[in-house]
């Protein structure tokens, strides 16, 4: 019973952590982007203020059942995936359900939220939303190819499909995956550019072109819930990358060690997050077909090299 209690508290802690970190990173990026563009920019905790405002709206408008459900789907997907992602290496508080799912499952579960979003956006009847969704799906077919190549390379290199095992092996040998299979890391890094949807791959929302695309008809509580889901997803993606390629984070068991481990995790995720953000600052927007072609070019070639590297 005590065991179950720890598990439930751990799961709740995970959600709070993911939410806080995701929102804060979003705020930091807003601030940094503003400074790069020579604007003053909002405060770092602006995202929390936005969320508070949205959640306190009294009236919400919905275009029907799927529109009502879309934010729920996103949160379901975010919450479920989060439970299957190892946060820290060998820690008591955050294992959640990580032993009961594997990489292939995560790949598919991460799509679950997008599907709900797509359906909700579709029911609003706004053509911009539907166009945004078709762009998003097309782009996904683009970046998933190098990403999956990188994952397959990892799996066959270590003969496991479990994230836990991949982390444990990296901790054991002391060599991060980004060094033992650099091509896989590069391919996945390129894929992450599409995953985070900063410029030049911000074709889904496409400000000034699609009027924020799929999100355009959502407001109030709906938008707030979506923001929460999106922030958790950002944390999930970053943690997944750190787990797979940068040896995960962790400092052992114990209270102090957990805090240090979390610190390491923040350091690693933040530096990883800056890659798509930096790339975004200096890039204009691609057309959709250019974006897809981009991922099917060098990133895929790197992925193929990674798989061959892993075989031999």
């Amino acid at each position, binding site marked *: 019973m005590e065991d179950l209690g720890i598990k439930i508290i751990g799961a709740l802690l995970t959600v709070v952590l993911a939410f806080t970190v995701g929102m804060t990173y979003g705020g930091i990026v807003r601030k940094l982007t503003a400074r790069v563009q020579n604007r003053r920019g909002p405060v770092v905790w602006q995202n929390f203020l936005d969320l508070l405002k949205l959640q306190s709206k009294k009236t919400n408008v919905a*275009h029907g059942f799927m529109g009502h459900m879309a934010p729920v789907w996103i949160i379901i997907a975010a919450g479920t995936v989060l439970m299957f992602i190892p946060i820290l290496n060998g820690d008591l508080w955050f294992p959640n359900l990580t032993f009961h799912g594997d990489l292939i499952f995560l790949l598919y579960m991460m799509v679950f939220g997008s599907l709900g979003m797509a359906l909700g956006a579709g029911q609003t009847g706004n053509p911009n939303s539907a166009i945004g969704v078709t762009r998003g*799906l097309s782009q996904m077919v683009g970046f998933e190819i190098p990403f999956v190549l990188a994952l397959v390379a990892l799996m066959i290199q270590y003969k496991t499909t479990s994230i836990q095992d991949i982390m444990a092996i990296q901790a054991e040998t002391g060599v991060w995956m980004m060094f033992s299979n650099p091509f896989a890391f590069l391919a996945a890094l390129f894929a992450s550019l599409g995953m985070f949807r900063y410029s030049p791959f911000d074709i889904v929302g496409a400000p000034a072109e699609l009027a924020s695309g799929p999100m355009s008809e959502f407001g109030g509580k709906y938008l707030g819930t979506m923001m929460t889901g999106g922030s958790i997803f950002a944390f999930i993606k970053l943690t997944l990358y750190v787990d797979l390629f940068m040896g995960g984070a962790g400092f052992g068991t114990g209270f102090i060690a957990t805090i240090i481990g979390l610190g390491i995790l923040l350091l690693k995720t933040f530096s990883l997050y800056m890659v798509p953000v930096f790339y975004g600052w200096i890039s204009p927007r691609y057309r959709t077909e250019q974006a897809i072609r981009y991922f099917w070019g060098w990133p895929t070639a790197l992925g193929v090299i990674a798989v061959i590297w892993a075989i031999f």
Partner: protein
Amino acid sequence: MNSFFLILLILFAGAGLSFALGKISSIISGTVAFLSIAAASALFFTQIEMGSFIEFSLGGIQLQWGINSYGYLFGIIVLGLGTLASLYSISYMQNKERTGGFYFNYVLVIAGMTGIIFSNDFVSFFIFWEIMTWASYLIIIYSGKNVKKIGIKYMIFSAVGAYSMLTAIVMIKGTYDTFLISEAINSGAFNFVDNIYIPILLLIGFGVKAATMPLHVWAPGAYNNAPTSFTVIFSGAMSKMGVLGMGLVLGHIFTVDRSGNLINFFSQFSVIALQQTIMWLGGITAVIGTLYALIQDDAKKLLAYSSIAQLGYITVGLATGTKLGVMAALFLAVVHGIFKGALFMVVGAVERQAGTTDMTKISGLIRKMPYTFLTALISIIALAGIPPLGGFVGKWMLYEALITESNSYFLVIVIFFSSTAAFLYSYRFLFGLFLGQEEKETEHVKEAPITMVIPMLILAVLLVITGAFPGLIFAPIAQAMEFIGFKDVTWNMSVLNNVWGNEMNLTYLGITIAVVFASIFAFLTLKGLKGTRYIGTKDISTSGEIPYDNENLTFQIDFFQPFVRAAAPMYKRSMDKIWNELGNGLEALFNFTRKIYTGNGQTYALFVVVFLVLLLLLKDTLFI
């Protein structure tokens, strides 16, 4: 009377009776067809004993009918789906003309498939196979449209398949002196090393029905041209007959030869080459099906191409020859029967209520046909392989089998590309029919009648159950696999495992999703119910402008234009073109032979004279 005879007798009698009653009323005819199929399924599921068989001789040939665990698995698909589809068909075919003939052939197809499942010898197998093919041909051309283009294509490919199967059967009889399937297998008829032609000829025969590249070109047209209540059977169950045959052949090639005695390097190599060829053909089938599905504007055609893609996955799984791979294939075969059956039912319901399946003409049916939409949504989630439904279980096993057991790392990417691109047409299907702007043209549309909705919802519920408890299907699959030569097939009710020892626990997944769903939905709905206001699809923000009522905001044409542009090189080649070129080449060849066989007596006389002259000239060298 023996239950094998009884089941087939009921089906054939039902066929005849529904034909006769077709003159009176389409509903009576359809009800008789439904009742006969339902009675046959009831008998099948209750009265048949596993492993029992009967023998009798017909015209001096010993025939044997029976049921084994492998056939039983496919019997579940055929008769289960057949019952639901025929119930659905009553309302769908209501007030259509010539329903007598339609139901006659409908029940005959079911009877043919049941016969195939019962057949333990090649002769009755072939006879029932042909009954199925001919009856389905007559249904394809039922509408009278595209008879020349689609009907003939189907006929030609079916004939090619039938002839190659017949040749193989004759060769088996000649080499091993038996018509019994099990005896032929035991004496090594499917052993690829001993006899290269028999397995390949059989694979061609079954590959046609399973729509494997390059024999798939008949499928989209035929699926689309048949009345939708038959397409449910066509795609859901009849294509599985090809899978049945392929599983039988491939199972024995790969399980016996690869794990068995290694004869020499060459034989091993040739088996692996054949295996890789079939696997890649399956993979390419999946990609082609997907790419063409996502450019279709017609919902039924979209599903037809998607069926081809899904059958590609099944082919890949069967060809891996590993436990997990074959299990994945058979699981996908069952689940594909369920979700594609449900999806074609959805299309049929929309066709009946809204008058068309063209997605550029209808949109926004979600609030008018809520139950149909629910079925479509659940089936599409299963089709796309998104957790936690049955489709995901099959996909997971297929990927893990390819990565962990058969070392096909690049084929995994091909399959993955195909199934990621499948999200595109999945979304297109849901958006095209149910979401988007609610237009005036579809205002009159109402939910389909209850006899159509109930079968759909049953299938949808089955998908949810197979996602949470795939073990319910693993049980018959494991027995079927032991029949085709695997040993110690293990399975769990809700936990999936691969050979590296990693697990996927569906119970935890289900619980997590349920808990998060319940809490968030309660939070959103209960707290916000008062403050939530419904607004129509014209009440949207179009960059600050207010759209007028008559303004067309429907987005349906060139839906995936950017993707198609990016993937343009992949659309350049088409198997249809290649077959057409082959046809043209053959025609040129026949034209050339026409120059020899002119049909003119004078020319033939000339040939005789030339021949004699040559004989005389060469007599010294030829006859020494």
